[in-house]
């Protein structure tokens, strides 16, 4: 069936309920990607409705189409370049005046616009009555009332959108903002200049282009310079002359005068369509803010929420983690019995299942963490958190908004680095990405637990806390260092809207949570899979190692001798002997494993690296463990388990004992923990850094910087401690 295809773009102010409407329209049929070249999330959904194929695009929330932020540039470029069939401007009906500012700008570009007066119920409860017919008549476009969170009016909206897309469109000449005489003169003279001199080489509406040139719009200027050929300089000069004239005439920048006049135009519309009944009720959100952003109690409350989030993530997450662990174990155990003993089995069990299993086990944590963060976002608390943290984040030279990625870094660096895309300034984003890996992620915790538990006993808790603090302090130092050298940036004027507090909708919480977790699973799962396979290959090959001892015959020898003893022994002694036999056998297997590890490629690499790690008190086994930690930090513990010849299970008492008897000192353990805290992020994080900074340079820089910092700090601790101890 050949159905008609239309593309519909959703635009609107932030917090106008755009995403809710998008979720209602598309449900789970969403595709999350990036806008080309930038790291702003792009959401699309394809649906079939009324016999049409509709492609719904969720544009980023913007206040205007003046290109200040990436979001605004994206939204504008999309409408101008991709030319969607219809643009639905979602308007917060309870905040009509400001919403119309964006709406009038859409009216100035030649595109088919449709208004959705969203949150009609909120507007009504505030005593606002909007005459939709009048509004539709004044601006010459369809207007639909919607209540996004109750899914009201969405079908009508789509119906009207299709109707509009089907209709032949005429540019409404009289429904635009009309500026004062001098500005109109400048616009029309510049417009005719454009029409005469560019011969249609500028792809946009000439009037709009003229307006933008008068507003000194950098992007439009650049495009005119590129497209208009030899006359482009002249056009820009002409525009500058008009700008100077208007500047002189109004004693203010033309863009500000024009903005004022747009608001004047809007005020005229408001007067005709909006009636306010006298009931002026108190703003509940404001009253909540009096408490939650209060200078005394705001911060403690914030700390409580964060504490509660982590508590929930790790305590509630422990149960499903256990189930997954059991599940993975079950799968590998059953495979042990089913598959024949060969290289492929080893590959499947120790390479694929062990590797992927070690990541999947963190899925519950990630899901809960993202669920909590979605709650913070959807209720509107997140922007308050950014507000409260702003003062502290200024220590590093960042805005409060950077706090969110850094906070998420304690859970997992990958989503944390992905969260940095909410930052507007590119320099802020890069800086945040560079320091986030110093937030000790949850995968590093097992390493601390094992090492601190083995060497510091009762004081383990304080030591681990100290390690976390070292990470925070070094992130501040790093931030300040880079802010004053590599990423020196002007302090952009900071203004952020604090959205009203809303009860979150479970559906959108789940969609948000799943969107992010999906990225984690898909991309990171792939990388970890490849990484685990590499680690497996390095540790499994070369296959034919010449062992110093013929373990296999020794094992069967031991077994045979014990079995013979058991045969002759008394009933009571049989059990004891059987246990002794098993112990002896597993002792031999461990010895074999250790030797195998030592003689594998991995072992050779570890031996080569040993001189590098020696000054910081880490032997060749530790170096290999750290090396494998590049794939995923949680592998450090399991590698240690193999190399120190203990049972493979994490943080077991056996590994602790093995570590204690391996000759590692408490100081060495401390140095190792600090090294684990600081050294290069895991493969998945490195991939995320590459993607979010969009450059290999920053990725390499991050790896080199963190690893050298780790070595230096560990060196200072180990050597300094040794000197002090003597």
């Amino acid at each position, binding site marked *: 069936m050949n159905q008609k295809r239309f593309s519909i773009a959703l635009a609107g102010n932030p917090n106008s309920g755009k995403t809710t409407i998008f979720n209602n329209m598309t449900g789970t049929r969403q595709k999350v990607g990036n806008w080309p070249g930038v790291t702003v999330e792009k959401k699309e959904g394809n649906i079939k409705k009324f016999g049409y194929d509709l492609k719904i695009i969720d544009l980023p929330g913007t*206040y*205007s189409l*003046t290109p*200040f932020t990436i979001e605004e540039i994206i939204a504008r470029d999309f409408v101008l370049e991709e030319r969607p069939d219809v643009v639905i401007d979602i308007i917060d009906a*309870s*905040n009509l*005046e*400001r919403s119309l*500012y*964006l709406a009038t700008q859409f009216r100035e570009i030649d595109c088919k616009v449709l208004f959705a007066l969203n949150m009609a119920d909120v507007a009504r409860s*505030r005593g606002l009555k909007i005459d939709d017919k009048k509004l539709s008549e004044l601006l010459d476009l369809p207007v639909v009332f919607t209540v996004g969170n109750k899914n009201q009016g969405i079908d009508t909206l789509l119906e009207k959108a299709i109707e509009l897309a089907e209709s032949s469109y005429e540019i409404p000449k009289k429904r635009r903002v009309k500026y004062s005489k001098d500005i109109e003169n400048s616009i029309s003279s510049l417009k005719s200049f454009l029409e005469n001199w560019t011969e249609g080489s500028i792809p946009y509406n000439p009037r709009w282009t003229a307006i933008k040139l008068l507003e000194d719009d950098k992007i439009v200027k650049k495009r005119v310079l590129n497209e208009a050929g030899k006359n482009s300089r002249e056009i820009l000069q002409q525009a500058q*002359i008009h700008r100077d004239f208007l500047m*002189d*005439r*109004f*004693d203010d*920048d033309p*863009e*500000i005068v024009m*903005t*004022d006049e747009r*608001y004047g135009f809007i005020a005229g519309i408001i007067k005709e369509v909006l009636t306010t009944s006298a009931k002026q009720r108190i*703003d509940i*959100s*404001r009253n909540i*803010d*009096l408490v939650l*952003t*209060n*200078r005394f109690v*705001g911060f403690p409350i914030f700390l409580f929420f964060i504490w509660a989030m982590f508590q929930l993530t790790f305590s509630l997450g422990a149960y499903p983690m256990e189930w997954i662990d059991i599940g993975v174990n079950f799968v590998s155990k059953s495979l042990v019995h089913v598959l024949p003993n060969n290289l492929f089995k080893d590959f499947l069990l120790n390479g694929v299942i062990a590797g992927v299993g070690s990541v999947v086990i963190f899925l519950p944590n990630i899901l809960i963490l993202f669920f909590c963060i979605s709650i913070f976002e959807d209720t509107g608390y997140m*922007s308050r958190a*950014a*507000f409260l943290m*702003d*003062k502290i984040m200024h220590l590093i030279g960042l*805005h*409060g908004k950077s706090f969110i990625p850094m906070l998420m870094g304690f859970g997992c660096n990958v989503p944390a680095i992905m969260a940095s895309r909410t930052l507007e300034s590119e320099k802020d984003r890069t800086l945040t990405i560079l320091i986030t890996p110093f937030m000790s992620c949850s995968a590093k915790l097992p390493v601390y637990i094992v090492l601190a538990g083995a060497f510091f006993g009762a004081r383990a808790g304080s030591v681990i806390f100290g390690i976390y603090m070292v990470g925070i302090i070094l992130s501040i130092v790093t931030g300040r260092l880079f802010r004053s050298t590599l990423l020196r940036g002007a*302090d952009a*004027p*900071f*203004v*952020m*809207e*604090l959205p*009203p507090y809303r009860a979150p909708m479970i559906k959108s919480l789940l969609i948000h949570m799943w969107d992010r977790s999906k990225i984690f699973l898909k991309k990171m799962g792939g990388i970890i899979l490849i990484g685990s396979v590499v680690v497996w290959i390095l540790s499994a090959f070369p296959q034919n190692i010449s062992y110093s001892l013929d373990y296999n015959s020794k094992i069967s020898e031991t077994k045979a001798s014990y079995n013979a003893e058991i045969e002759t022994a008394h009933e009571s002694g049989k059990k004891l002997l059987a246990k002794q036999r098993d112990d002896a056998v597993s002792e031999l297997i461990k010895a074999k494993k250790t030797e195998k590890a030592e003689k594998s490629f991995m072992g050779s690499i570890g031996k080569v690296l040993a001189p590098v790690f020696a000054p910081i008190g880490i032997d060749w086994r530790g170096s290999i463990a750290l090396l494998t930690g590049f794939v995923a930090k949680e592998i450090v513990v399991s590698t240690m388990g193999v190399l120190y010849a203990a049972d493979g299970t994490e943080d077991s008492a056996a590994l602790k004992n093995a570590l204690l008897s391996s000759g590692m000192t408490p100081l060495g353990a401390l140095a190792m923990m600090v090294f684990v805290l600081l050294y290069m992020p895991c493969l998945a994080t490195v991939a995320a850094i590459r993607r979010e900074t969009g450059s290999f340079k920053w990725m390499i820089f991050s790896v080199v910087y963190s690893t050298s910092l780790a070595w230096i700090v560990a060196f200072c601790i180990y050597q300094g401690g040794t000197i002090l101890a003597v």
Partner: protein
Amino acid sequence: MKRVHKREKEQFKKLFKQENIDHFEDRFNILEVFLQTEHHVSVAELVRLLKEDGHQFTPDFVRDTLKLMCRFGFAQKRRFNNGQVCYEHRHLCQHHDHMICTKCKNIFEFENEELENLQVQIAGAYNFHMLRHKMEIYGICSKCLKDHVQLMSLVNAKQGERFEIKDFIGGATAHMRLLSMGLRIGDKIDVVTNLDSGQLVIAIDYNRYALGRGLAKKILVEPVVR
């Protein structure tokens, strides 16, 4: 009056030659025509007058020359209620003196016989031969004093206070940003929180904003009595 103009023309020659300004002859013609007028002229009018006098100049050139004349103190820019920019003479030697408001840039003329005499006396006491004098008092006019005395920067606001936004200082970008987010001159705002050396939370109707200190410094407000 003739005499005064002669002196001004001499000064004009001296100054413009000194500063190596181009098209001296053309500009001098403009000056002559300008000095013949005895009221406020706009650029367009002056172009017309020049044309009547047989000179053909572009408005841009005339505006440029007028700007130079303003710089050297021969003319002065005036903006009247209809917003149109006009230029008028600024005579350096007239019998009245000026008070100049640094805020609204308005110039107030005053005459005081005693002051004139006093100046002659003072000069005489020092055995100084006075050719001419210039008396300019800079300050804030009574209207501006009334309007602006209570303006303060939002950054100094306290929690719970109510203000009206009166002015934005600083660059056009920051100003535009605030405008597009719905913060405009004339809006009544409530200060919800003001963290010491941190950000501020303000509320307008049902909207709330967090503002950086740097930006809050650029917003001038006046307290609203509730």
